[in-house]
């Protein structure tokens, strides 16, 4: 029982963490609260759904289908993200930040309802992307997909943090996130870096979508809304632009989602608890748990 809940917590936490990182990447580097990010997640879900359904007609190798459809979906969402950045955000780079946010609201709406119109409003059922096997750990039966979700999420996070720490692109990303002008003086093409951050964000969102689909299977066109807000909250809770913060925030939200229903009479009060925790943290540390406190210069 306890072990099961713990696995549930890890599973949900790692999905939230991945989604939060994907959100935080763009947030930290492009300095943009991307309200359309949830729609990228939605599109990833649909692409995964169609790709895997199609592939399962040809073969029954579950892992092969999983990897291949992830790749197809990543490609698709990357293209969407690049187009989105080029068309709707790049022209507004020097505009007041708020107009970019509104523009992203527009893009989000467009994509979400495009998905609704093209795929229909009926909820879809994602095929099993991870073999439907159960394993026994210390006398408790646990489905394999739960373990795999956690493992895949951690691998993705480790690869990402290596990318950001060790590669030249990662260094450039960190530079741009801190100071675009100074980065430009050092010969960094911030436009290119921002495009990459959108691609990374899209790929991570696709992986998160794959894991989410494996865990919950049923979804509809508005699946991205909830994920978008939760990842926004996780990113802010942990500290904007900080990958470690996003992971921490994701796991805290995962924990609240698992623990709150056990303690509270009404399970949907968990939203209230989550926001309560968030507001409480922000009131005490206004820049999030791992965010840097910037002193006001006078």
């Amino acid at each position: 029982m306890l072990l099961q809940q713990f696995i549930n917590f890890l599973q949900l936490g790692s999905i939230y963490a991945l989604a939060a990182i994907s959100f935080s990447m763009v947030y930290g580097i492009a300095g943009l609260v991307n309200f359309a990010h949830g729609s990228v997640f939605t599109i990833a879900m649909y692409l995964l759904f169609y790709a895997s359904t199609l592939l399962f007609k040809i073969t029954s190798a579950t892992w092969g289908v999983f990897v291949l459809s992830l790749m197809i979906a990543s490609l698709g969402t990357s293209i969407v993200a690049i187009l989105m950045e080029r068309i709707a955000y790049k022209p507004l780079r020097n505009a007041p930040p708020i107009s970019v946010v509104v523009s992203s609201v527009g893009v989000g709406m467009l994509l979400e309802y495009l998905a609704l119109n093209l795929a229909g409003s009926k909820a879809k059922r994602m095929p099993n992307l991870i073999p439907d096997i159960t394993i026994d750990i210390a006398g408790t039966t646990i489905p394999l997909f739960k373990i795999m979700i956690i493992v895949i999420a951690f691998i993705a996070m480790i690869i990402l943090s290596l990318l950001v720490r060790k590669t030249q692109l990662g260094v450039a990303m960190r530079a741009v996130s801190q100071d675009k002008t100074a980065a430009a003086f050092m010969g960094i093409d911030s436009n290119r870096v921002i495009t990459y951050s959108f691609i990374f964000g899209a790929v991570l969102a696709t992986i998160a979508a794959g894991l989410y689909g494996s865990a919950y299977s049923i979804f509809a066109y508005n699946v991205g809304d909830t994920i978008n807000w939760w990842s926004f909250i996780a990113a802010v809770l942990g500290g904007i632009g900080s990958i470690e913060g996003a992971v921490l925030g994701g796991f805290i939200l995962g924990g609240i989602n698992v623990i709150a229903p056990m303690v509270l009479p009404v399970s949907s009060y968990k939203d209230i608890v989550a926001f309560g925790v968030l507001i409480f943290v922000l009131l005490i540390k206004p820049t999030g748990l791992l965010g840097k406190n910037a002193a006001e210069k006078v």
Partner: protein
Amino acid sequence: MITKRKNHLLGDVIPVIIIAAILIVLKEFKLISTSRLLILQYIGLYSIFVLGINMVNGYLGIFSLAHAGFMASGAYAAAISSKYFFKESWMFPLILLFGGLIAMLIGLIMSIPSFKAKGDYLAIITLGFSLIVQSFLQNWRFVGASKGINNVAKFTNIYWVYGCLLFAIIIVRKFINSKYGRSLKAIREDQVASELVSVDVKRAKTIAFAVSAFLIGISGALLVHLLGYTSPSAYGYTNIVDGLVMVYLGGMGSITGSIVGATLWQILIQTLKNLGTWRWVVGGGLLCVIMIFLTNGIFGNKELSDAIHAIRKYFSRSKTNKTISEETTK
């Protein structure tokens, strides 16, 4: 020299009378269909909503997402009051006031986080507030939980809507032209500098949130009594996004902009209605296009009177230019 811009009684009163006359004629002589009349009411109602949002998001320059929560509190408070206490139609002003005041009370509380938190962090706190209110209403049996409140008396008509809009415009204008309004604009530009020229930042923010929530609460009260029902699902993401779109479409920190934003968006949504769900695709795309080409919204922080002023100036200048060019050709 400085020309004092006095409030022209004529310039203000005449348009109001004309609009009132048009509304009366339209309604009483049934010159437009009921559905068009409904659109007109939506326009007026959402103009109040947007004016309220503009107090905080526009004049004070905080990216707040609390408006859905304020609207929900106003709507529910009003619906409860009309169901249990103010059952007669002549009590409608009391209902509206009650909705506004309850929202204002909550607005006063919501101003506290804004003293310390900033930017995106404050956005998320206000978002959290809105979603907590929604979640709370979804679970509260007394207000019907997720089914909401039904069979609310339909007291709202076009006169009440536009009467309230007029009231809202007057209130906002008075505040903006007072020391409080000037403080808001100062804080928007530079909070530290405002404090160091003696502006009481906390007080100014409290007032902005209170007025904002009051107006939004009234718009919520009007909406409930227009539709005859209310449910928690109306005050979620869509409501938040709708509000943002209208504010930034019209222009931040402009009364004219608020009304224009609400009008355009409502007309757009209603006329695109026969596109079905495709209208949201078109609407979303349009929103992007507008932001790219009109970065600060349609009116920016200008008012209609500024525009008229500029047009007059332009014409008088082109006239003098003409006379000069005529002279030179001679």
